[in-house]
């Protein structure tokens, strides 16, 4: 079978899984649903590998194929086919997405066990994977937008999965609306592309663009900036990021899959996919890189003070995506994509470990109340440490190779791009500190009551009444979900397996891309990026290793600082917080982005709505227009009413008036 045939199967399997689970929700047990869901994704991963094998069997230049099923909407000069595009970049994404997804499905199999919405959960989760695959396999901009919006929908549905919680539904709404704003950016970009190039197909767009556009011509810059609106909204970059921390309302596997490993990296994929356009619009590419840089620093600074375990990791995700955006925008394509992959491994893992701990805490997420889980939960804490090391770019872990490769490229490109190297290392220092702040505070110290209970009895604590961790509100007992039982990795083999595999990958996946040694990812992705002059820039092996050495030193320094702050002298952070309370408040309130958006966008919109409803509708529409008309008709009617009464008569009157008026008009015209 050809690579495209396997790719169609990759696409079809999760969709089939989702539909099967949804339709069979009354007839099947939770176990069956979980097996179908996990199996569908596992098979999709296998098909992805077979597609890869097919692709590798071809010469590098021939590794791109388009395939279409039917004309989706093709009239009046617009040609939109239901078509996919298979090349190393899309297959790379397919493998990352299906690989990580199948592990997260496996984890969910255990984690969501006692939840009453189990079928709904797996159906949505499969649908999400389908959407994400559609996004990466789409062969034209319209289908890309469809996949783009579908993942947004799946994200919404899973954020507000526990829909009896108002916090969850509100977070879902926020995520959805901000993502729609991103969709609008993409749609406008597609219109502009169509206006300039007359097509939506990737292959034609990328082939025609260099012939039609001059470098930095306003149209191509505008196209790229509109694409960036979509990319930033989906990848939670400033100023469209506020939905991501709130998205942590969803179940933890969702945070792991959608809001860390896959969907939020779609913006990175988009920039890499459309690099042919960004090469023609260096201004837009630089804007993207600087936004990525700003996001990576802002998010890292917020992660330093977050007390909510999941939200702290969420800010870390934003920050890490900032690195990837910087990478693909400045031309370090394969480095950016490689960081996307390693990040998927270690961030998914960190969320899984966090989920396991939150389950042990009976849904409590505040790290101020956690400590000593190192003793209580061996497996979870070891895997969390693996994830943490990779995130902090500890020497020889996967994150170490991937992050430093981006920074080494920035150095090699030189000039203005050295800013990215320097501030990127600053971000790396902050990353190491906030990561090990979490790890030390959660895993070390005397066991908190919940951890102690686990050590003493071997059972997980249960809250007396189910409550909403965000508000502390006692939950409707009618709800039935999230389930009464909590599941931790230590007691659930599927969770353990998923986390074990990811821990291995987090530690060792970096070895497939060692500078000067193997560089597998670069070689594989090379054919996609050959058309970009930026891909020719390549840091020398010496430079790469010097960069790695600096990265190693910074990582170790960050971990040491965290050790000193949170283990040796735990008084210091508190003193710092008091001394610099203004800074702390500023960071703790997340730079007041939510408040700013509220004042600038939400309130004006609501005010307009109120004005429309209370003033315009009442006085102009109902008062002046309708009232005026009615009065006129009423007066006219009153004359006739002396003869006969009723509305139908009014009609007759108008007929007469109309005919008379018409007769008069023609008389005047004729004369």
């Amino acid at each position: 079978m050809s690579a495209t045939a396997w790719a169609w199967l990759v696409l079809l399997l999760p969709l089939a899984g989702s539909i099967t689970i949804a339709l069979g929700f009354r007839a099947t047990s939770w176990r069956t649903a979980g097996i179908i869901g996990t199996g569908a994704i596992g098979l999709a991963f296998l098909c992805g590998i077979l597609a890869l094998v097919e692709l590798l069997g071809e010469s590098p230049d021939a590794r791109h194929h388009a395939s279409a099923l039917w004309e989706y909407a093709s009239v009046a000069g617009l040609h939109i086919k239901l078509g996919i595009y298979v090349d190393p970049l899309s297959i790379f994404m397919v493998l990352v997405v299906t690989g990580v997804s199948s592990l997260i499905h496996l984890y969910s199999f255990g984690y969501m066990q006692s939840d009453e919405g189990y079928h709904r959960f797996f159906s949505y989760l499969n649908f999400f994977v389908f959407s994400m695959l559609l996004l990466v396999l789409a062969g034209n901009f319209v289908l890309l937008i469809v996949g783009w919006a579908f993942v947004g929908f799946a994200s919404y549905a899973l954020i507000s999965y526990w829909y009896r919680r108002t916090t969850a539904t509100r977070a879902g709404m926020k995520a959805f609306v901000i993502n729609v704003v991103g969709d609008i950016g993409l749609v406008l970009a597609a219109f502009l592309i169509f206006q300039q190039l007359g097509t939506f197909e990737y292959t034609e767009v990328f082939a025609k663009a260099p012939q039609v556009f001059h470098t930095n011509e306003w149209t191509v810059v505008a196209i790229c900036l509109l694409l960036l609106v979509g990319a930033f909204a989906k990848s939670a970059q400033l100023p469209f990021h506020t939905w991501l921390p709130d998205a942590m309302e969803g179940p933890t596997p969702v945070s792991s899959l959608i809001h860390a490993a896959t969907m939020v990296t779609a913006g990175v994929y988009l920039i890499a996919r459309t690099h042919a356009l960004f090469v023609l619009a260096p201004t837009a590419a630089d804007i993207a890189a600087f936004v990525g840089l700003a996001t990576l620093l802002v998010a890292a600074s917020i992660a330093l003070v977050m007390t909510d375990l999941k939200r702290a990791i969420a800010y870390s995700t934003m920050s890490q995506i900032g690195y990837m955006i910087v990478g693909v925008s400045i031309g370090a394509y394969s480095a950016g994509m490689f960081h996307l992959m390693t990040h998927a491994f270690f961030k998914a893992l960190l969320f899984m470990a966090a989920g396991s701990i939150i389950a042990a805490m009976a849904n409590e997420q505040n790290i101020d109340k956690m400590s000593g889980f190192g003793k209580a939960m061996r497996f979870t804490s070891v895997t969390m440490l693996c994830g943490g090391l990779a995130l902090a770019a500890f020497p020889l872990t996967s994150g170490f190779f991937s992050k430093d490769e981006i920074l080494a490229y920035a150095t090699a490109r030189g000039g203005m791009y050295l800013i990215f190297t320097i501030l990127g290392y600053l971000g790396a220092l902050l990353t190491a500190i906030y990561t090990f702040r979490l790890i030390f505070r959660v895993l070390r110290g005397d066991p908190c009551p919940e951890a102690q209970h686990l050590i003493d009895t071997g059972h997980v604590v249960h809250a007396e009444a189910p409550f909403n961790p965000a508000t502390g509100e006692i939950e409707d007992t009618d709800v039935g979900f999230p389930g009464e039982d909590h599941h931790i990795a230590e007691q659930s083999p599927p969770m353990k397996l998923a986390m074990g595999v990811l821990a291995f990958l987090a530690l060792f996946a970096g070895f497939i891309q060692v500078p000067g040694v193997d560089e597998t990812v670069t070689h594989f992705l090379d054919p996609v990026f050959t058309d970009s002059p930026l891909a020719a820039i390549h840091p020398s092996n010496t430079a790469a290793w010097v960069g790695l050495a600096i990265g190693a030193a910074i990582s170790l320094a960050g971990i040491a600082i965290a050790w000193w702050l949170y283990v040796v002298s735990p008084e210091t952070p508190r003193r710092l917080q008091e001394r610099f309370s203004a800074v702390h408040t500023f960071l703790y309130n997340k730079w007041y982005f939510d408040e700013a958006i509220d004042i600038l966008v939400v309130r004006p919109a609501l005010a307009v709505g109120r004005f429309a409803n209370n003033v315009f509708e009442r006085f102009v529409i109902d008062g002046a227009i309708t009232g005026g008309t009615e009065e006129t008709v009423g007066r006219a009617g009153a004359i006739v009413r002396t003869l006969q009464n009723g509305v139908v008569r009014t009609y007759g009157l108008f007929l007469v008036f109309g005919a008379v008026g018409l007769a008069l008009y023609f008389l005047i015209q004729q004369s």
Partner: protein
Amino acid sequence: MINALLWVPLAFGFVGLFLPKRVVGWWATAGAAATLVIGVIMAFGFDNGAAGLQDTVHTSWISGLGVDYSLGLDGLNLFLVLLTALLWLGGIAFAAFREKERPQLFFFLMLAAETGTLGSFLSQDLLLFVLFFDLMLVPFYFLFGAWGIDRTAEGGPTAPRATLKMMIYTLIGSLLMLVGAIATAIISAHGGHLTFSIEAIQQQGLPVGSQRWIFWFFAAAFLVKMPAFLVHGWMPDTYRAAPLSTLVVFSGVLAKVGAYGFLKIVLPLFPQATSQFQTVLLLLALGSILYGSVMAFTQTNLRLIAGYSSVAQLGFITIGIFTLRADGSDGAILQMVNHGLVVGAIFIIIAILVERSGTEDLRAMGGMAMRAPVFAALFLIVTMATLAMPGSANFIGEFYILNGLFQAKIVFAFIAISAVALAAYYALRLYIGTMHNRKPDGVLSREISLRDGIVLAPLVLCILALALYPQLILHRADPSVQQSVAAVTESSESNLAVNE
């Protein structure tokens, strides 16, 4: 065949008047089903690639005045006819499951309205169109007035009073159109043989001076019917008064007659005036979009959320037509069908929600998804289609419309597309506010009943099928749309030539 399509509903309705109460609902449903079957058979016989009329009937009616009884199918009305038949079947079946006072009269009026509506879609004669356009409303006056809801307790009007408002608005529009139609025929005859045939009038052509005022006479009628911004004053009271099963068809189909009228009559007959007033209409439609969206997210009554969202959607459709480009107008046709399907489904859903909760106020609802997973899923699909999520046919409709606008007037496109975000907000607000969050006391969370499911599921299936293959409609509509649009572009080109 086309005669059967048109008159079967009325015939069934008439016979139904003499049937006992218990069976009349089923009899009416059978009538609506028969109409749909005829429609579907005709659709299968439709020649896809052709632009002109098919299945025509043509007999002279009032020969002295040049009025003909002339019907026909083309790419513009084919799917609107099917939509009409489908929604009427849904609305009637939904009503048939429920107790009604004087059901014989109720179903007679419903079916009479169906004939009226089909007639206005099928008419190929200007006067016949005007006649059907007016006739289709008469049954609704009685339906709303007699079976409507009294809102005096909430400080609103009685049903007859609310209906009166609608009557005044629509009658003024209709009368202007009648005058316009007569004038069109007389002027276009140029002193020769009088004819009301749309095709013939198009060939004869009208002087630009006359086009200018007649354009507005027709536009007034169509804009009121949609309703468009500034002339929508009748809509809120009427929507609150109307029985929900009649709103399914009223909101789903009747508004489309206005939009259809622009494509069928205004563009081909008044081409110069159309291109002259393009910007005015676009601005008005933009007003509809923004105003409708903003109103939709401030309303708390479910009916009004749906009502104002329709104002916004009809704004999109109007914009598509007045891009005066084939892509925009293709999108408009597709969107008419899409919007009819979703809004019909939404009103059925609202009817179910109101039965479960005993209120129409969004603030007093919530949490109904818990014991109703199937209902929640159907509602969610409809919600996503309403907000035109990419992947739905509604998205393709809007994509074509906005692409047309983008190429024609780029600034307008940027403004119009912002309403897409507003739509996401108000549509989700409706879904979340009723299905999610905590359940207030007194609100029932119960699965959709089988009988309501039978009504709602086919609509959802149509929405899904179109999502997979919007080309089904686009492909068939395109040749006819090209013809309508070409009338305008050719005339403005010849205008330019004259000026040069």
